């Protein structure tokens, strides 16, 4: 027990101390090394934590203020892994930006400090047992990314960050209203104390919560956290924020922040299901998810900016996961969790590649990016493999999770398979329509040679491949536990 505690405190404090320290480091080279060091420490801590939770089962930490179970410990490991590879990637990437886009050194300091603070917000949100603190953590992570999106201070980036700030602010306000409503009904059971916001207690007494208040709360939470997940029709902030921020930020936005919002929504769905005893919450999620999938698949075709194009693909996949968790059978949850993992890995890998491609061609406009495979084979193959993986080609994990999701759909709502399949096919066509000319063909004259760090990308893709070929035994067991947990089964 104490072992877990130590791991936990270590994991949570590492990014916080890192962030505070990096705010004072001036030399860009040194701060990127320190950034990697702290991310590495966080990863080691969270892996230790994961092993401890797997051995000892779920439990509470620090006087019940935090709690760890199969569901969140898995997301903690994923978050720290992707933030480590992102920090490795961002070293040379930000150095290039610093030299070529005259980014002042003070802005780099802001970047590193905010990056670690963002990771801290993510980990706090995943581990807290208090739904009020979950809100605070998500807001903290959002505020950190708002500053990161506007890092370049170009007109477009300021406009994008403002839009992100305003829409996220509205969403987060609705989510707070939902949280207050839950407190409103739960305080009649637990009295006016933190207990009434404590997730484990709420979950244990879900049946006693007032069903009509919980349903109303879920409507607000759905729209509120749904805005942060990037679900249509509240998705307008997402493409702009992805396109205008630095590439490592696009990678962690897509790969991590959206996951935290979805995590929160699924937690609340578990509560509401317990309170109402109906599948209403799940149906609402399926509707939002499906709408996002279809709108994103169609919008993808109209894009010119490469990062905007891939951000629509993120909306599409978040929609797919929302559908999976909305269906809510253990199989669907398994598919949703697996999809969350592979999407985080592959999409952040793609954004790394895209960042280098944009640096090499001096533009994010897809018409300017040509002949990548000849200009720099590493980048070209990376983009090609990444696109194949995200589109759901067989050997990769995305195929496995989508296949599992299809089986779950056929078991529950068979008619749903038609719109889902249609959305995926349209998105598939869009991805290859744009990627094929970018990868092949002659190299344009404006291409410049760059030093690309493709190692994190290939590690991500290799893991996605591994998850597609054979999910390692302990991991599969882990997914299964989490999937049953979410479906409302016994907690481990």
């Amino acid at each position: 027990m104490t072992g877990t505690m130590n791991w936990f405190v270590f994991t949570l404090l590492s990014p916080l101390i890192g962030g505070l320290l990096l705010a004072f480091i001036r030399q860009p080279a040194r701060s990127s090394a320190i950034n990697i060091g702290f991310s590495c420490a966080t990863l080691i801590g969270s892996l230790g934590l994961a092993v401890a939770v797997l051995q000892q089962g779920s439990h509470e930490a620090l006087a019940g203020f935090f709690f760890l179970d199969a569901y969140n410990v898995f997301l903690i490991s994923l978050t720290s892994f992707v933030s480590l590879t992102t920090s490795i990637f961002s070293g040379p990437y930000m150095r290039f930006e610093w030299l070529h886009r005259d980014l002042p050194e003070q802005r780099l300091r802001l970047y590193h400090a905010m990056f670690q603070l963002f990771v801290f917000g993510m980990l706090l949100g995943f581990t807290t047992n208090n739904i009020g603190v979950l809100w605070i953590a998500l807001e903290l992570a959002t505020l950190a990314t708002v500053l990161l999106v506007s890092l370049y201070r170009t007109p477009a980036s300021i406009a994008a960050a403002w839009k992100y700030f305003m829409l996220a602010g509205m969403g987060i306000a609705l989510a707070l209203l939902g949280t207050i409503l839950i407190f409103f009904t739960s305080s009649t059971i637990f009295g006016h104390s933190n207990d009434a916001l404590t997730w484990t207690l709420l979950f244990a007494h879900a049946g006693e919560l007032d069903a009509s208040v919980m349903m109303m709360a879920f409507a607000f939470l759905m729209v509120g956290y749904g805005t942060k997940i990037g679900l249509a029709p509240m998705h307008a902030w997402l493409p702009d924020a992805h396109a205008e921020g630095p590439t490592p930020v696009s990678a962690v936005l897509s790969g991590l922040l959206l996951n935290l919002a979805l995590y929160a929504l699924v937690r609340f769905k578990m509560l509401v299901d317990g309170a109402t005893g109906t599948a209403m919450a799940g149906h609402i999620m399926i509707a939002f998810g499906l709408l996002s999938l279809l709108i994103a698949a169609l919008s993808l075709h109209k894009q010119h900016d490469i990062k905007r194009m891939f951000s629509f693909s993120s909306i599409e996949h978040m929609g797919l996961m929302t559908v999976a968790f909305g269906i809510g059978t253990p199989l669907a949850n398994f598919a949703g969790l697996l999809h969350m993992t592979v999407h985080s890995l592959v999409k952040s890998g793609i954004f790394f590649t895209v960042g280098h491609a944009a640096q090499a061609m001096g533009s994010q406009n897809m018409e300017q990016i040509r002949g990548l495979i000849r200009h720099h084979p590493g980048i070209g193959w990376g983009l090609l493999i990444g696109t194949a993986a995200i589109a759901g080609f067989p050997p990769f994990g995305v195929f496995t999770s989508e296949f599992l999701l299809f089986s779950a759909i056929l078991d529950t709502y068979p008619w749903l398979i038609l719109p889902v399949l249609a959305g995926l096919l349209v998105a598939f066509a869009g991805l290859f329509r744009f990627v094929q000319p970018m990868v092949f063909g002659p190299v344009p004259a404006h291409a410049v040679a760059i030093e690309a760090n493709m190692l994190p990308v290939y590690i991500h893709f290799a893991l996605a491949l591994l998850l597609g070929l054979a999910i390692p035994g302990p991991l599969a067991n882990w997914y299964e536990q989490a999937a049953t947990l979410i479906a409302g089964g016994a907690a481990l």
Partner: protein
Amino acid sequence: MSDVMLQEAISVAASLMLLISFALLAQHRLLSVLHWFAAQGVVLALTTLLVAVISGHYELYFSALMTLLLKGALLPWLIWRIIRKMHVHREVEPLVNMPVTMLIALALVLISFYVALPIERMSQLVTHNTLAIAIATVFLGMLMMITRKKAITQVIGFLSIENALFFTAVGATHGMPMIVELGVAFDVLIAAIIFGLFFTHMRNTFDSLDLDVIQEKSKR
């Protein structure tokens, strides 16, 4: 006895909040918007104080003081300084004209009452009218954010939503637990600082705080 008093007091406060929300929407001048926003902060602090006195939750005295300082004084003063420094006294230009805005606002209030209908009576403190008004004030704040072109008016809309949420929490549940309330206040303060930063960036980059201008220039 005290429950009845509390209920009455909260009802009065709720109607004041709703009134101020409409007043915020109806203003043509930026400074009047700001005055009403400050008034909202003061009403909020008074409500918190009232609930504190009647219910005897000591935490709430602290909340009331914090609300008065932060929302009744500090934030309005910061925004006033920005308005003065950046010379944005000009009229508030709504995207939708005033009569239509008012009609939409009325519809939103009706919808809120409809939404709150199933909650007949949760506790002794709160009738569904208060809850409906609380939700309505949140919606009106959003309407303000959506229909205004100036970044500053949008921020005031955002902060008035925050006020409405705080009011909901105090009115419906005697406020959230201290730790959550402090966390939320901290986030709002950080958000306000970031707003200030953005105003400076916008001023430097676009020479305007008008979002139409900003959208236009950022496309080029």
